[in-house]
Every structure is written in structure tokens, then in C-alpha cells.
């Protein structure tokens, strides 16, 4: 397939979510996944060296076209929408869910010392967290976890890329 790079570039362009080499292989077939991966990396550095308004970014286990950071004020102005805003309460709640998942509301509240209802609801609405199931204890409380969207928004490929919690380790060692 002589125009593989073109095809991959176009596919990344039309997709609204990051695409992995595996997913792309389903479309182009007959091409080794490693070969696709190589092409994607090539495309990524091409756009990076070009220093244009758009780049290719790895996130949520795939590749995605995004605008460059340098132009964000104009994009925001053009979209006239509010940028994604997360309050400290939302961020703290999200951090607890991300690191402790699957986690119950009561556990989040124990860590933060305050009611977590509104923060959880806001994160659910932003699709950064989701209901992953119920805990098999009396009352069967709902458990929360992060979404693929969370990885995309925070530019992580998977949860293992979350920075380690330094102090938790220190505490465990004592």
C-alpha cells in the first residue's frame, strides 16, 4: 500500500477520538501494526517540526490531531465557548477516583473530609468519570472509575501513566 501515510493522516483527521494502530489496522488491513505505528510516529514528528497550528498527540492509547498550545486564545475566542473548567473540588475528587478506582462516594468523602455529591455529579456530566458497578457489600453502593475521555483530556495513554503518589508510598513504609 503505497499511500499508507496519507490514508493514516486522513483517518486521524476525520476521527473525533484518538485512534490506535490496532484500530487503524482494521481499516487499512494487510499492513503490519508495527508498520502503521512507525508511520504514525513519522507523521507526528513531521507535524512537530512543521511548527504549525496543528499537531498530532498521543493520548488514550491512540493518536489524535489537536491544535497547538500556542494558538489556544484564538481558538477559545472563535468557539465563544467556555474552556473546560475544573474547580479544585472537582480536581481533588477526580484525583481520588483516578488513583483509587473503583471507589465509592463514601471513600472520596473520607479522603476529602467533605460531601462529594456535587463534584461527582459534575465529573459524571463532563464524562470524566463513570459508574463502573456496585460493591458487593450491604447496600450495594455505586462505584466510580475514570473514563477513556479522562485519558484523552489529560493526555494519558493509560492509567499506569498517572504520576506515582509520592507520599502514599512514604506512609506505607512507616
Amino acid at each position: 500500500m503505497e499511500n499508507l501515510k496519507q490514508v493514516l493522516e486522513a483517518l486521524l483527521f476525520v476521527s473525533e477520538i484518538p485512534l490506535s494502530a490496532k484500530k487503524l489496522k482494521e481499516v487499512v488491513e494487510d499492513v503490519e501494526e508495527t508498520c502503521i505505528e512507525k508511520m504514525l510516529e513519522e507523521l507526528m514528528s513531521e507535524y512537530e517540526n512543521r511548527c504549525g497550528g496543528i499537531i498530532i498527540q498521543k493520548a488514550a492509547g491512540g493518536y489524535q490531531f489537536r491544535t497547538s498550545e500556542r494558538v489556544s486564545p484564538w481558538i477559545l475566542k472563535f468557539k465563544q465557548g467556555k474552556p473546560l473548567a475544573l474547580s479544585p473540588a472537582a480536581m481533588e475528587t477526580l484525583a481520588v477516583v483516578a488513583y483509587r478506582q473503583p471507589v465509592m462516594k463514601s471513600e472520596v468523602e473520607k479522603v476529602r473530609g467533605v460531601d462529594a455529591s456535587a463534584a461527582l455529579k459534575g465529573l459524571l456530566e463532563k464524562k470524566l468519570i463513570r459508574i463502573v458497578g456496585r460493591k458487593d457489600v450491604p447496600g450495594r453502593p455505586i462505584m466510580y472509575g475514570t473514563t477513556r475521555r479522562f485519558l484523552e483530556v489529560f493526555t494519558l495513554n493509560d492509567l499506569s501513566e498517572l504520576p506515582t503518589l509520592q507520599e502514599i508510598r512514604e506512609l506505607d513504609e512507616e
Partner: protein
Amino acid sequence: MAYQIKLDVFEGPLDLLLYLIRKHEIDIYDIPISLITSQYMAYIEEMKSLNLDLAGEYLLIAATLLHIKSRMLIPAHEEEEAEEEDPRAELVKQLVEYRTFKEAALNLGAVKLLGRDVFARNMVDEACSGGSDRPIREIGIFDLVEAFRNVLAFAGEDIEMEVDLEKFSLSQRINEIMEELNQRKAVTFEELLGTKRNRKGIIYTFLALLELMKLRMARAFQADSYGPIRIFLAVEEEK
């Protein structure tokens, strides 16, 4: 001492405590409980005098602090000293844990966020039609519940209506039996029970069968009084 308080800057009582610890350059693992308690109480009083809506959580920590303080004042008996845990231990653990997540939150927020610092293309969703084999876009269960709430709000129905978990279990069992019958055309009651041989499993299987027979989706036969009960899919002609 004049306190400049802006209550909104604190994310809760633990955040306030952390602020006091930082402000007085206190070692979190060795908190001078009298000092911290009086500082904390001063803040609480200030909030009250400003008629700020003081969340119950702040009072809870106040009570905890006072309790620890009183325990620290009682001299420990020598023989118990080795055994006795530091009354502050639980609170310290809580504070360190909270501080960790507070930092983790800051780290998380420090990266380039999609939708804040960088943007992707958002496509207009094309009309959704087509085959049953196409995968369905990731949807969260929360969206489903919110959709249901919208509908109920529109219908003016009592939103307090509780969902009947027993009815759910019955629907679940009906679905399972239908799947089984669709695959195998005929099964015995014993086979249907399979691994669900607990009391609940038997009851729901039985009720589900009754319901299916009532809905004329399944028929049951028994050749002799003690023979196995065989369940068949009742094939219905579409009218």
C-alpha cells in the same frame, strides 16, 4: 489577631488544617495539638461571626481536635504507655492522605488539557442508522439515568419513584431464559436452574417461567408426574 478569611479558599476542614500547619511551619507528623486547636477554633468562631454557612464537616473536625487535645492532657500510665497509640495518629494519617491527593490534583491540572489548552475537532454526529452489527458508541450508565429523569420530568411523574430491584431481577431472569431458549429451543427446568440453585435463583427462575408462559413466549410440558419439566419456545406467528 486579625484573621483574613476567605472561606471559599478552603476545600474543607482538612484543607483549613493543612493551611494552618503550613502557616505555622509545623511538622505534620508532630502536630502541637493545643496550638492547632486554638487556631482552628478561632477560624471557626470567625466564620460564625461572619454568619458564613458553616458546613457540619468543620464542626466534626473541631470535635475531633478537642477530643485529641483532652486525650493528650491525660497522663498515660507508665505500663500503658508502650501500648497506647498516639491520639493524633488517625488525624495525621487523614491529613497526609488528603495532602497527597491535593498535590496529585494540582499535578493533574498542570498538564495541557484538551478543551482548555488544546482542542480537537468535534464532528457533527451523522444520523445514526444502520446495521445491528456496528459497534455502539461508548455511553455511560449515568447518561441513561439522566435520560430517564428527563423523560419523567417531562411526563410530570413523581421523580421520587423508587426502582423495584426485585422486578429488575425478574426481568433479568426472563432475558436469560429467552436467550437460552433461542439457542437451544428446549430445556428442562433443572437445566435452566444451572448454577443458580440458591433460594433466590429458584424463585426467580420459577417466576420468570410463569411470566413467560403468561406472555405466551414459552410452553412447559411434563410427560409424567415426576418426570422432568421441559420448556419450549412458543413459536408465534407474526400477524
